[in-house]
């Protein structure tokens, strides 16, 4: 029953954002929705942008902990650019506060694929990041994504650094993806492991469909009068 009531609230918030976004009265609802996104591992960029816009218009009502949570959720949405989109709406003085500086540094490391530095910094800021469940897994998914864009076959050490796993934890991770995501393991010349990532159009260019040559249905309808 409680879960249904919760679903009711989030449906209303999304509706509010779609229908009446420029309304300072929904600020409290939007803040609650951020907390709900955190606790139930959901995410809505539009609702969060709406809230950041309201904060922009009424800076006295801004709540730093809520903004921090929004930014962490945005980090978890990578490779989507949500983090920058949020920052565009946050004034410079706010961005220079300690916790936001840390988050900006973390985003910078992820944007430039400096995973080792990233995980080191995360270790120094556990309290900030552990308050958002799913953070670890989300970043691991991003790391795997970037590796899949880049590598057909990636050395074990590179993967290990990217997802911050070693030894047994790494083996378990590999086992899971071999079984579920189409990964394979080979031995490289130096006797260390090579992980073969599934082929996609980014690491196997021959798979790239020439999508731009397909014509959309709407455009074809333009010549129906001619054909008849």
């Amino acid at each position, binding site marked *: 029953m409680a879960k249904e009531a919760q679903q009711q609230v989030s449906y209303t918030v999304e509706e509010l954002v779609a229908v009446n976004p*420029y309304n300072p009265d929904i600020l409290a609802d939007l803040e609650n929705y951020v907390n709900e996104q955190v606790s139930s591992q959901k995410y809505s960029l539009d609702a969060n942008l709406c809230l950041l816009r309201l904060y922009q218009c009424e800076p006295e009502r801004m709540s730093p902990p809520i903004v921090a949570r929004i930014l962490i959720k945005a980090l978890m949405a990578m490779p989507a650019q949500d983090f920058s989109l949020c920052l565009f709406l946050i004034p410079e003085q706010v961005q220079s506060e300690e916790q936001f500086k840390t988050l900006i540094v973390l985003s910078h490391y992820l944007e430039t694929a400096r995973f080792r530095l990233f995980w080191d910094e995360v270790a120094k800021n556990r309290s900030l990041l552990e308050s958002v469940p799913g953070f670890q897994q989300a970043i691991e998914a991003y790391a795997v994504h970037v590796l899949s864009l880049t590598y057909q076959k990636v050395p074990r050490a590179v993967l290990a650094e990217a997802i911050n796993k070693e030894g047994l934890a790494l083996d378990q991770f590999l086992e899971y993806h071999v079984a579920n995501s189409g990964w394979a393991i080979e031995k490289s010349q130096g006797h260390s492991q090579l992980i073969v990532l599934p082929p996609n159009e980014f690491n196997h260019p021959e798979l790239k469909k020439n999508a731009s040559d397909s014509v959309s249905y709407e*455009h074809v309808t333009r010549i129906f009068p001619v054909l008849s």
Partner: protein
Amino acid sequence: MAAYDADSSAGGDLAYDPNFVPDSVKTFVVHLYRQIREKNVYEIHQMYEGSFNRLTDRMFRESPWPTAEAVEPYVDGDHVFCLLYREMWFRHVYARLTPTPKQRVESWDNYCNLFGVVLHGVVNMQLPNQWLWDMVDEFVYQFQSYCQYRAKLKNKTEEELQLLRNFDQAWNVYGVLNYLQALVEKSNIIQILEREKEGLEQFTVDNGYDYQGGSNVLKMLGYYSMIGLLRVHCLLGDYRTGLKCMAPIDLSQQGVYTNVIGSHISTIYHYGFANLMLRRYGDAIREFNKMLLYILKYKQYHQKSPQYDQILKKNEQMYALLAVCLSLCPQQKLVDENVSTQLKEKYNDKMTKMQRYDDEASTVYDELFSYGCPKFITPSAPVLDEPLMNYNQEAYRLQLKMFLFEVKQQQLLAGIRSFLKIYSTITVTKLAQFMDVDEATLRTILMTYKHKMHSTDNDGKIVSNADIDFYVDDDTVHVVEAKPTKRFGDYFLRQILKFEEMISELEKVQLD
């Protein structure tokens, strides 16, 4: 509405009598009023674009037109006509003179009244699209101007500060956004565009006009408000929401938005800029290219238009932004030859510098971005206690800072690109040596290149923007050149339609 106060006129022209209506103005308003009542859109357009500007040049270069109150008796006291007249009156003040603080607030009131009447659905006129576009465009412009004005607190007089305190609702950002949103909703324009895709509406074919005796005003104001919303959101730094507001309009096609050149340029300029900030460089380049080519071909036809200067300014800004996009994301085949020539003439040196990615590059990026970007605003109300400061640059500084940060993150990619152009395969070790970094760093640079050159579109799909691509097999980098995409499908469709047109023309010819 308070009568115009001649003593505090910004023109300082004490000879100006707001209540004196010269004969030519009398004739003008009587004629215009009649044309509006008889719904002669062509005539209205001639008077609106032609006569109004000629009279302005002749008699009102440095003073306002007679007030709406003075003109009222000649138009049967028609309430809506006076609202329209007043809108033109304020627009003229903004264009040729400097509005006083009081006038800024009064103009806001007028827009509230005008939009209020339109939203009630009681306006049954047909007005030229140019006029309706100008209204929305001016509305957003005056909002932007007001935000800039009230953010400059340092040299304000006590009287000005008091005005700001008393009229704190004037031009408030919620009001502006809500009016635009209301026009979009009340006009049902989104549903109309949807139904048009299924062939149930003639909106685009009729250019928004109503040939069944109805009115185009609410519909077109709703349509143009979508572009207005894109613009306001760009000014606030919310690019994603701005693009969402424009989603109902298909930019790959001609549409009503292309028929008034002001709306065409404003749409593409803001669309392109938003995509640039979203790192969707391919989309931005494509749209800027199309627009610049269009302006190149057709600007001569607009030389006499009052908007000519604006067109030229936006043209230059788009070249600057295009230079920025192409430096961040070089593309061989997306830019038309003629546009490319113009671009090289204006920015060849600067583009070379930007692609070097050193400190000097940063300065050039700063310069071009600052020239090409919109005039960002801070939407919050000013804090009116001491100490009074100017904060009108804050919004711009934030966007610039974020943009330059992004540029810096992409700094190392230029080095990679130059090597990828030369080699078809190269080991990680060798490449690291050439770039003078250790292997681990090189691997991060390779991944950064991949990440930055692929953007996420609105549906979450990953799209590649890279002209040169690669993949890594253990410790070897294999380079792949992106194939130029030939759009055969589109080409054939266009030719089919063209030939059909020609054939039907020929069939009409009768030989004796």
